[in-house]
């Protein structure tokens, strides 16, 4: 039996070094530490809290760090009915979040105004800020939120994280 000698394998290095693309590495880090900005506006916020608590535990997906400061968050979870009175405040919080940032519209109200076809309710938060993932439900169960979070992770995986920034930088320098 011929001896299967591993070629160019150094056990001291192999455990610590990963060969990959920069984009993939950055996306891998980003998607596993999505710190949410809990924009809890109605009953969806209760389900959001349930998702964070021990039974459902979004810490398993790296999202346990609810940040009440927009400057420290990556993903805004708009959980609830966005009234016109609140709308510009939500927009302002979103504007204060640093790039890269994502938005989850949790539940029917945040996605489309829900049952409130009304003078007082914004008909979907996507009228003001770009939404990455919409979650149906009134309110959605924590499992649905976790599914939405996992979809967002899959979306982030495919994003050209570094490439776009480099191109923007080059365009800036050229122009």
């Amino acid at each position, binding site marked *: 039996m011929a001896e299967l000698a591993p070629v160019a394998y150094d056990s001291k290095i192999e455990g610590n070094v990963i060969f990959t693309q920069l984009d993939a590495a950055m996306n891998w880090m980003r998607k596993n530490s999505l710190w949410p900005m809990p924009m809890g506006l109605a009953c969806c916020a209760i389900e959001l809290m349930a998702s964070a608590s021990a039974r459902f535990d979004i810490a398993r997906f790296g999202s346990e760090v609810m940040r009440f400061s927009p400057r420290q968050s990556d993903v805004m979870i708009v959980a609830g009915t966005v009234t016109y*009175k609140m*709308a*510009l405040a939500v927009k302002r919080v979103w504007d204060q979040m640093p790039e890269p940032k994502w938005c989850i519209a949790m539940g029917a109200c945040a996605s489309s*105004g829900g049952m409130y*076809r*009304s*003078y*007082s309710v914004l*008909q979907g938060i996507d009228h003001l800020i770009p939404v990455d993932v919409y979650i149906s439900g009134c309110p959605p169960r924590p499992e649905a939120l976790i599914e939405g979070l996992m979809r967002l992770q899959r979306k982030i995986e495919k994003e050209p994280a570094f490439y776009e920034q480099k191109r923007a930088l080059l365009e800036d320098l050229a122009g």
Partner: protein
Amino acid sequence: MSHSPKAAISAVESRFKVLSKTEFRGETSLSLAPEVIAEACLFCRDELGFNFLTDLSGLDHFGEDPRFEVVYELYNMERGEWLRLKVRVSEDQPEVPTVTGVWATADWHEREAFDMYGIRFTGHPDLRRILMWDGYPFHPLRKDFPLGGKPSEMPDVAFSEAAPLQGGPFVTTPSTATTKDREPRARS
């Protein structure tokens, strides 16, 4: 359990000019003139023991004159009695004297009625909108206000748009039919 306060009703009737009196399922409503409503409320509180204002709300009888109405739901904590007072005011002069001096809780209720119907409560200490933002140009619970709202814009404060109703407004059909036939839907 409603206890119709017969003694209280006759006391109000003998003291103030009651424009109309209706009874429905043991509940009595007394309609009074706007000029005497604050005095009547004070009388009800101090002399008749109605120490709790359960609710104060506005009504829009669109197409009638006088158009607006304010309803006061009074409760006597000692005796468990209810009394309803009503005041009609016209569209040209929708003014009702405030009862904030009688029950402090009337403050926010009157602000809501002002916000939603544009009924002004004279003598109110702080008559601002309570639900919509200051500067919103409409009174959204008026009957001639569209269900989906109207567009408005107040830079840096708030804006509003007309909501799509997709063939609505949604109409409930009361009957003994199944939920599918009764529930609110766009019916053209």
